[in-house]
Each structure stands twice: as structure tokens, then as C-alpha cells.
């Protein structure tokens, strides 16, 4: 009996000590969180930084974690100089090691990948430094523009914080909270014009700057080709114009002297120079005219090409400011413009 009592008391004491031990661990486990810079795949570095910072701010606002400041977190570059990709910190070992160096309890590492024209995949991992394990892994799909990406980052921040993302966050009515850039706010004050179809936009871009429409339409090689061709022609034209201008200056100077000169010797000296300079101006002028013809031809081809390769929107549906449709009753294709 005494033995049984002794065992029960021993277990009780052990449980009490265990509870005490757990308590001491929970005291040590704080809520310091470091958000490592997200890695961007096929998206620009400033955008990645902006999205990471937005994510960081959202998590901080939710007050579930004490989010470490961006400047301190980025000090890990000093600890471990490496390239700007954090894939090497996708593993537990790396993240936990960094978390210890940064003196935080949790670490979030992630990446943003561009999967298609307008589709993005956001991945993130939450590591516990104290428990030396990965607590959670997140993956979100986003399609659309930067605003949509920001929304997804906010959703991820809610997920990381263990909260449910509010409905108002996803309906897109509260975009002003998401738009951190002043430019976006400024755009909202402007008159909202009807959307421009992608083909027309590409056409306009390539009209203004050859090749830019193709580049915008993700046809980079043809785009750079057109841009390079026009640049080469432009450079050749500039060189030809410089030569022409030089010859024209020489022609004018010598011809003026010739007209006022009375000494036959000087006149005989000037005569061949005038003829040579005049021939040079004609040569360079003809060269420039040829360049103009070729350049304009390439320009037109570039415009048509940009129109053809641009994504085909369904812009003949009446929502846009013009509508092209076939009227079988009059057997005509009609263009309607809406204001």
C-alpha cells in the first residue's frame, strides 16, 4: 500500500515538475519573427521587395508576432554573404541557423514565381527556431496584376498568423489599403478610361517605340530584333547625317568663296572641292533616303507584327470603346465607337 502510495506521489511530483519544465520552455519561446526577403522568379526585384515588405507589415499589424524590422533581418547578408536568392534557406537547417543568428523565434522564407502571363505562385514556410522544425507551409495562387499579388500576400500573412482572412480582403473593394504606392492612389483620381485591348496597346507601343509592343507581349526576341534593327538604322542615319552635314558645310563655304572670288588660280582650286562636296552631299542624302525607306518599312512591319503577336482579348464585346462586328443583314463589317 505504501509502495502504491509512494508511486502515485512520485508520479504526481513528476507531473508537477514536468508542468514546471513546460512552463519554463514556454517562457523562453517568444514571438519574435523574421521575414526573410522573398525570392522572385521572373518578377522584378523591387516588386519582390515591395511584396515582402507588405507581407511583413500585414503580419506586424495583426500583432500575433513581433516582426523584426527589415533592416535587421537583411543583416543576415552580412552574416552569410551569398547571392540574393534564399533558396539555400528553404531547408530547416539554414532557416533555424539564421533564426538563431537573428535572435528570433520564428523565421518565414518564401518565394514568388511567375507561372504564366498573369499567374503567380506564392510559397512560404514558417520555421520555429526554438523547436527546430518547420511549422507550416503555404502556397497561394494569384492571377492578375500587382494588386492581386498584394491581396494574396495579405492572405498569407493571415494564414501565417493563424487567423482567417476577412472577406473584405478578398473582394477587392478595399484595394486602397493594399496599394502602398502613391502612384496607385494617384491613378485612382484620374478619369477612368475604357480598357485598351492588348493588341491595340501593343500596336501603340510599337508605333511609339519599335519592338516595345512585342516585348510587352512577351515576344522578347522579335521585340529586341526590331528595336535593334531600328537602332542600327538610326545610328547609321545619324552617322550619314553627320557626314552630310560636314559635306554640306564644306560645300557652302567653298561655293560662297567661289562666287565672290576673282583670282582664277583660287577659282580653279575651289572648283573641284565644290564638285566633290556636292557629290558627297548627294551620296549621303541618297543613303539617308534609303535608310528612311528601309526604316519606315521595318517600322510598319514591326507595328503589324506587334498587333499580331499581342494576346487576343475578347475586345469585340461592346465593353470597350469600339466594337467591330459583322452584320449579316447588310453583309458588312461595321465599326462602332462608344463614348
Amino acid at each position, binding site marked *: 500500500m505504501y509502495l502504491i502510495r509512494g508511486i502515485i506521489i512520485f508520479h504526481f511530483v513528476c507531473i508537477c515538475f514536468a508542468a514546471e519544465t513546460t512552463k519554463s520552455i514556454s517562457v523562453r519561446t517568444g514571438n519574435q519573427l523574421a521575414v526573410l526577403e522573398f525570392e522572385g522568379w521572373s518578377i522584378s526585384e523591387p516588386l519582390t521587395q515591395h511584396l515582402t515588405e507588405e507581407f511583413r507589415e500585414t503580419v506586424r499589424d495583426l500583432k500575433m508576432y513581433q516582426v523584426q524590422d527589415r533592416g535587421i533581418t537583411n543583416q543576415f547578408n552580412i552574416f552569410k554573404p551569398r547571392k540574393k536568392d534564399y533558396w539555400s534557406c528553404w531547408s530547416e537547417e539554414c532557416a533555424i541557423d539564421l533564426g538563431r543568428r537573428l535572435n528570433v523565434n520564428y523565421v518565414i522564407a518564401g518565394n514568388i514565381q511567375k507561372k504564366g502571363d498573369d499567374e503567380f505562385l506564392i510559397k512560404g514556410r514558417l520555421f520555429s527556431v526554438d523547436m527546430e522544425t518547420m511549422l507550416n507551409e503555404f502556397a497561394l495562387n494569384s492571377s492578375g496584376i500587382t494588386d492581386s499579388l498584394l491581396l494574396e500576400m495579405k492572405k498569407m500573412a493571415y494564414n501565417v498568423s493563424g487567423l482567417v482572412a476577412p472577406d473584405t480582403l478578398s473582394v477587392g473593394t478595399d484595394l486602397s489599403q493594399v496599394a502602398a504606392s502613391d502612384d496607385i492612389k494617384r491613378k485612382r483620381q484620374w478619369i477612368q478610361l475604357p480598357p485598351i485591348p492588348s493588341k491595340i496597346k501593343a500596336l501603340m507601343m510599337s508605333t511609339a*517605340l519599335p519592338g516595345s509592343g512585342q516585348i510587352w507581349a512577351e515576344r522578347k526576341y522579335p521585340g529586341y530584333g526590331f528595336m535593334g534593327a531600328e537602332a542600327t538604322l538610326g545610328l547609321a542615319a545619324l552617322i550619314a547625317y553627320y557626314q552630310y552635314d560636314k559635306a554640306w558645310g564644306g560645300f557652302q563655304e567653298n561655293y560662297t568663296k567661289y562666287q565672290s*572670288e*576673282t583670282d582664277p588660280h583660287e577659282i580653279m582650286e575651289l*572648283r573641284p572641292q565644290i564638285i566633290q562636296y556636292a557629290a558627297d552631299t548627294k551620296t549621303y542624302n541618297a543613303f539617308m533616303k534609303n535608310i528612311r525607306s528601309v*526604316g519606315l518599312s521595318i517600322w510598319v512591319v514591326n507595328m503589324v507584327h506587334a498587333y499580331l503577336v499581342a494576346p487576343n482579348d475578347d475586345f469585340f464585346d461592346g465593353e470597350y470603346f469600339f466594337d467591330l462586328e459583322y452584320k449579316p443583314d447588310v453583309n458588312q463589317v461595321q465599326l462602332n465607337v462608344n463614348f
Partner: protein
Amino acid sequence: MSIFKQMKFAFGILTILSLLNLSCEDAVYDLDNPNDPENMDLDPPALFFHPSEINTKVDSSFSVQLYGLKLNPAAAAHLDVRYDWRGVQVDSVVADTFFQSLNDPFQIVIDDRQGTVDIFIYLLPDTLIDQNEGGTWSLATVYFTATSTRGSELLFGENTRMRDANNDPVGVRSFGSGFINVE
């Protein structure tokens, strides 16, 4: 605006301006200077008077250059100049650049008879040259005084000839003429 966007914008402007500025005017000219020997219907090598027409007044002095057009290298010349002694008289003759060399002065002999002036010019050889390089240069300048309103025509006589350093004839295909109008 990022640097890349600025570069794109500048490149676009440059390209457009380049293509717009591609057309310039062609050089149009007319080599019609009356003092141009090419407009004097001379067949070079030639000798001519410059200026070919002089308007002056009685008792006024004026000068006429005896010019060579695309002459071959020469070392001496005999210029037989004919004029109307009743309208003008020769004051002096000065040699010009055609026979100048390092050895300056050269020799010039003037034999002025009525209506004819014979000018003998020699290039004095130096260590480098014994004849000139030819070309279009003035051989000599003749100073006249108009004595009456009769005026005078200026011609090269049949004794006009040129020689090179080997005393071989230097061909002159055509001779120009001049005219002096006296008011």
C-alpha cells in the same frame, strides 16, 4: 522613372528624330563665275588675259594679268602681247608667281615697241628645281594707261612660246583675248 525607362524613352526620341531628319536638300550649284577659266572657252593648256574685259577712263592706270591655264612645267616664256598703241600705253611689267623660285628675282626683259610688248621671263634654277610645276598661275602683270577713248583689244602674238628646263617647247593649245573699254 527608372534608368531603364529613361533610356528607352531617350532611345525612342532619338530614333524618331533620326528617321524624321533623314531627308535633306541636295547641293544645287552653278559654276558661273565670269573669272572662272573653265567658262572662257579655252582648251588647256592655255594663256589668257585676266580680267578679259576692262572698263576704264582716259588717263587712268589699270593692270592686266597674263594667266596660264593648266600649263605644263616650264622654265621660260616669251609672251608676245599685242595692243592698240593709239588707245593705251604700257607703263610697266611685273613678273608673277608662275616663274618664282627660291632664287628671287627671276629675269624679265621687256621689249616695248608700238603695239607690241615682248616679255621674256626666266626661272632661275636653284638646288631643288630648274622648272616650275605648271598649273594655273599668273605669269606676269602688265600695267597700262588709257590714252584715248579708242580703247584696245589685247591679243597674244604668234611669237608667244614657252620652254621647259631642257629647252623643249611647252605646248599651249589656245590663247584668250581681252578688251579695254575707255570712256
